[in-house]
């Protein structure tokens, strides 16, 4: 089986339709079995679609019709003006107006064509930049997770949260922060950041683990909300246990009762 790095190099050609037959088969086989590469392919397709859709400068299909209507109206106005004040009217020859209109249409068309061509030419570079930005954020996040400063660790969480398709090591780092950081501020920021990736099995498992070990009420509230929101029924036993525990604050019990009603 091809590895993800190889597929990543071929995915742009695959989407662009420039990959050869054997290459297409390899990529498609890999995409069937690899969830993260499938996600990457979808994101690239979305990116390409967004870039193709970004054609605000494209002249409307009705432009010619509208121009003709405006021209006719202008001609009628000119005639009307000439009827009322014949001595002050400047008569513009019709063929001259058509020439101006032709130049205008040509200019708009050229601009659009140039813009479209440039986009096509720079598309691979833009994709490269997106990938590079993602890699830089990954490196920055991983290095900041180790920082002594809690603020910097929260910054690492923010970087990680911005990644569209985070590597496993990023998710593992976020999970470790959520489970182990000494300050609730970092644990809570990590729990919130992981919510974007809550479809991953390891993230769901980590939320359940965190609910079992977490003692800070702010964090408990956050975890209960997230687990109920992602409909994680494996959390029900621990939630019931917390509900019975005399040490659980009343406002958390209220939260547990309301969320358990939704979960069960």
């Amino acid at each position, binding site marked *: 089986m091809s590895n993800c790095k190889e597929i990543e190099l071929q995915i742009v050609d695959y989407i662009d339709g420039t990959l050869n037959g054997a290459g297409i088969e390899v990529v498609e086989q890999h995409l069937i079995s690899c969830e993260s590469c499938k996600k990457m392919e979808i994101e690239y397709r979305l990116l390409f679609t967004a870039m193709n859709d970004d054609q605000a400068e494209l002249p409307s299909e009705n432009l010619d019709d509208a121009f003709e209507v405006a021209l006719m109206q202008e001609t009628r106005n000119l005639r009307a003006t000439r009827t009322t004040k014949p001595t002050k009217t400047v008569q513009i020859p019709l063929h001259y107006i058509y020439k101006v209109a032709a130049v205008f249409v040509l200019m708009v068309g050229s601009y659009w064509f140039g813009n479209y061509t440039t986009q096509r030419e720079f598309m691979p570079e833009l994709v490269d930049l997106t990938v590079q930005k993602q890699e830089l954020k990954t490196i920055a996040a991983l290095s900041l997770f180790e920082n002594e400063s809690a603020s910097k660790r929260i910054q690492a969480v923010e970087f990680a949260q911005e990644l569209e398709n985070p590597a496993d090591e990023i998710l593992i780092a976020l999970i470790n922060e959520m489970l182990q950081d000494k300050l609730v501020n970092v644990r809570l*920021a990590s729990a919130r950041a992981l919510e974007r990736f809550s479809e991953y099995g390891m993230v769901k498992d980590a939320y359940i683990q965190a609910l079992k070990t977490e003692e800070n009420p702010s964090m408990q509230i956050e975890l209960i909300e997230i687990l109920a929101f992602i409909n994680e029924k494996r959390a029900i036993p621990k939630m019931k246990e917390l509900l019975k525990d005399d040490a659980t604050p009343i406002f958390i019990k209220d939260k547990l009762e309301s969320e358990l009603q939704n979960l069960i």
Partner: protein
Amino acid sequence: MMPNKILTLLFFVVSISYGFSQDYRHTTEGIDKVEVIASVSVIIKTHEAPSLLISSKENKQIERNTSGLTPIFGKDNTGFKVFVEQNNSTLKIESFQPRTDAPLIIYLPETIKLAVESREQNNIKISGFTNEIEAKTNQGDITIQNANGPVIIENEQGNTYVKFKELNQNSPNSIVNSHGDIYITIPSNTKATIEVSVPRGELYTDLELIAPENQDNKYRYRRDSRYIKSLLNGGGVSVVFIASRGNVYLRI
């Protein structure tokens, strides 16, 4: 020879009283961060000198009859039931004073990074520091005056009061109170991206907090109605306030 005897007596009195009322100083040259752990309340102020100062005027010294003896349940190398230890660029100040003792008052240069933790239900007061401040307590109040940020605060039972002089744009801020209220004063021209969660309380403010149109955090908006993310003066450094059971008071 009566005058000589008086002079000798005076010398001994002055020496003894000086010996029992000596300030403690430790240089902060090469020190980047100071960690303070205490069971008593902690008050940290700034001074001009490049040193840690524990003043005998403001702090209770150990009793005379402990001279030459070693404490079993705590450590002390300052004469104030406080143990000071340098580890590379970090200075650790650990107080072994009983919880009910008077507050520990210390002075440090304003540019030092601070990490302060009260082990028991006591207060933390910090004023005038221009660098990063981390503070954590279980039941006391935390008060920070003239902060520049970043400020990271964990407070389980007490209230938190922070007055920002300005807001460093390089690193995020976060204040999480489980039970108490959060009182924040912030300059009106501050650029910040502010997130507030008050699941059981209210947000009171005189700032114009407007949620941006393209919310990037759809998950939280869908599950939490008492949450707002707002760009103050066009947005800037991240500032998170979470009062799980209390209110947030955010004012200019």
